[in-house]
């Protein structure tokens, strides 16, 4: 057992460049040590009990359900990623794993070496469509690895929405899961991207979602984290073109013994860029969450505007939330604000509702809904909003 060069053999029929890239990533995986608590990023995130090797069976190589919007304009390419690597190497090869680097850590390397399912979406210049593309990644059984990767290329002035949904058929499944995404936004592109992670409650999940924004492009990214016993998600936007605008929003709801870790980066590489991040989470039972985010404004990124906030609603006495919002500002002509809060339901609010005759449990539920309300409004398209609201509703219960 374990991930080794032989395990790559099952991934047949791929072009040489991809096989080579996988071998390189595997070598990186073998070379890199497991992250230790002395690394700042992993100080509060314990992976010492995770051995990916025990889940080295890869499940369903191209297993995903793609819902193609009806009347998809011509020129749009929507395919399983491995198929696209074969059919459109000129589009895939120069981009794949150039935003999400395989050598970032051991798990990123493993994902790059063994990603199986996943989507490739290419929208040519000037193409717009309203109906969202829906990618559903299923895991049918436990004890294995499901490692989908999404690659989205948005041409100049294109406009569309995309939803990745990670679904477990068996909520008690164990295993190794990932769900990474790379999004390239061309000049003036407008992309809405939503990722909803609903893996089983006993899996280890690692995700890197990273976008690069060219001039005047707009990204509205929304992350929903609900599943996994351990979930580590990095959400990163690299603002590479003037006038680009990244909106990064997330909600998470942790219960039981779940542990969620979020790392975010708003990297303002050029001036006149804007980013707005809001991560909101509720914690129940003995769950724990860690949020660490960084706004970096580079030397020549004048007139940039960055906002970052993390709000945690702690619903149980035993749940723990850690919040570390960081700023690195190398320029004075900027507007930068960040904030973090960790706290229980405001007793004054609860009192107000109860004094109006609302039972405590209902009042509490209303306050939780209210807490998430403003961020739910930011979900970029209707289909995803309904999905997320329903998921949340069933959990707030």
């Amino acid at each position, binding site marked *: 057992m374990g991930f080794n060069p032989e395990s790559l053999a099952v991934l047949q029929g791929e072009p040489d460049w991809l096989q080579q890239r996988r071998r390189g990533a595997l070598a990186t995986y073998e070379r890199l040590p497991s992250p230790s608590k002395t690394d700042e990023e992993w100080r509060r995130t314990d992976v010492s009990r995770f051995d990916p090797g025990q889940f080295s069976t890869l499940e369903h190589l191209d297993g995903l359900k793609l819902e193609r919007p009806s009347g998809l304009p011509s020129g749009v390419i929507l395919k399983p990623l491995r198929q696209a690597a074969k059919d459109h190497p000129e589009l895939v090869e120069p981009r794949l794993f150039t935003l999400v680097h395989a050598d970032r850590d051991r798990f990123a390397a493993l994902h790059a070496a063994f990603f199986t399912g996943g989507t490739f979406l290419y929208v040519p210049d000037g193409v717009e469509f309203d109906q969202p593309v829906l990618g559903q990644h299923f895991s049918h059984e436990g004890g294995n690895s499901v490692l989908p990767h999404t690659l989205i290329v948005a041409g100049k002035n294109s406009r569309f929405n995309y939803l990745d949904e990670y679904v477990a058929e068996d909520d008690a499944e164990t295993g190794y899961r990932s769900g990474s995404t790379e999004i390239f936004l061309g000049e003036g592109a407008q992309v809405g991207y939503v990722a909803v992670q609903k893996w089983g409650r006993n899996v280890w999940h690692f995700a890197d979602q990273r976008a690069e924004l060219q001039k005047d492009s707009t990204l509205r990214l929304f992350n929903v984290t609900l599943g996994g016993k351990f979930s580590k998600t990095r959400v990163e936007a690299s603002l590479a073109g003037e006038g680009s605008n990244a909106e990064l929003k997330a909600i998470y709801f942790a219960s039981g013994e779940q542990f969620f870790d979020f790392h975010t980066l708003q990297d303002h590489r050029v001036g006149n860029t804007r980013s707005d991040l809001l991560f909101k989470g509720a914690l129940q039972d003995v769950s724990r969450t860690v949020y660490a985010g960084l706004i970096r404004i580079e030397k020549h990124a004048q007139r940039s505007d960055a906002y970052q906030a993390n709000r945690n609603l702690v619903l149980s006495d035993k749940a723990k939330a850690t919040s570390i919002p960081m700023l690195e500002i190398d320029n004075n002509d900027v507007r930068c604000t960040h904030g973090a809060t960790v706290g*229980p339901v405001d007793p004054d609010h609860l009192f107000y509702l109860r004094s109006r005759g609302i039972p405590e449990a209902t009042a509490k539920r209303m306050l939780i809904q209210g807490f998430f309300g403003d961020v739910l409004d930011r979900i970029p398209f209707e289909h995803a909003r309904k999905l997320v609201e329903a998921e949340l509703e069933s959990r707030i219960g």
Partner: protein
Amino acid sequence: MATVPKVEVGTDYKEKYGFFVPEEYVFKAKRGLNPDIVKEISWMKQEPEWMTKMRLRSLEIFRKKPMPTWGADLSVIDFENIFYYLKASDKQSKTWEDLPPDIKATYDRLGVPEAERKFLAGVSAQYESEVVYHSLQEELTKKGVIFTDTDSALRDHPDLFKEYFGTVIPPADNKFSALNTAVWSGGSFIYVPKGVRVDIPLQAYFRINAENMGQFERTLIICDEGSFVHYIEGCTAPIYTTDSLHSAVVEIIVKKNARCRYTTIQNWSTNVFNLVTKRAMAYADATMEWVDGNLGSQITMKYPSVYLMEPGAKGDVLSVAFAGKGQHQDAGGKMIHVAPNTTSTITSKSISKGGGRTSYRGHIKIYPGANNCKSFVKCDALLLDDESRSDTYPYNDVDAENVTLGHEATVSKVSDEQLFYLMSRGIARAEAETMIVNGFIEPFTKELPLEYAVELNRLIQLEMEGSVG
């Protein structure tokens, strides 16, 4: 002074002479750090054996601990090229003429009196406040307050000293607290008995007459139940020193219902590495306030902290950092909530100009069981030009129930609207900017005694000159 014979210690001095050097002798330990030098320091001070042992143990810890890899770049410090113990009289051998002209000019502009200037510059240890100090001393003695230098305290109040020394910041806390414990010298010792309020602020100025500002000061303040004291160290005028490393340790114990305020204004010359560990333990319903201003030095790493040990304790840090060209101020605060129903606030204001870098680094830790705590952190940074840099690294760890924690930070430049408003009222641009900066740090200056506030405003004015192109 020049005729006083120079004695090298560390080789054969002890064996050869075998007696304690009278104060008027110039004493200078060798450069570098080894157990013999530490023993010599302890022997020179005629310390009890436990202290000598503690120093040696700390030296071991210092050697074993790695350099911190976070924060500012400290790799340039050469520990072997530092004098670890200098008697005051040696520092006095410098002359006024030796001072760098910019330091002298700053004294002029700040309007610091001649005698005080010499004292600050380390060219004279005689300071006119000695008289003030003596009458103050009488007052304090009547109330039972002890206010002395730390070396004398070890000699004159051995039991009290031993009970508290090293209990708030043990030598193994960090590399620099270990270094300080190994080679400490000077600093203030204050004991305020139960229920006593010391109405006038106690200032290091008054005390430091024979002993100059030390490199490795050690300050210990004990506020017994229900007492109050305000201690002020430092001053706005730049302190010139040829020593490149300043590594002090400040320990404070604030007992039940007591309140202690500790005000620092640090303005070391820009060749100094200022690496200071400051920590207070606050017990039931006690209040600890750090007011901390960092203007000078090349690199400062300083995070005053409060351990909230019993219910009702309150901690407060108010910090201002100003980083000019070539400076890195890595400052902030730490609040460690050990007991339930404790509260803390940290307010940080930082200003960077001319390529300077300020970093806020803070830590709020709420231990399991420390329920119903409240903590709030606010950091504001002002960047005056596009070469400068500002960072914020707040760490918040909450392991308790029903905790409310907030953190807010903003980074901005002097706003065009504010400038326009002032300039439309006929105020010159440079002056307007200075006003805005002074307004920005007002929450800090208003906590200072008047004379310090005036000096600080003047200093900001000086620092701001030439910043507007």
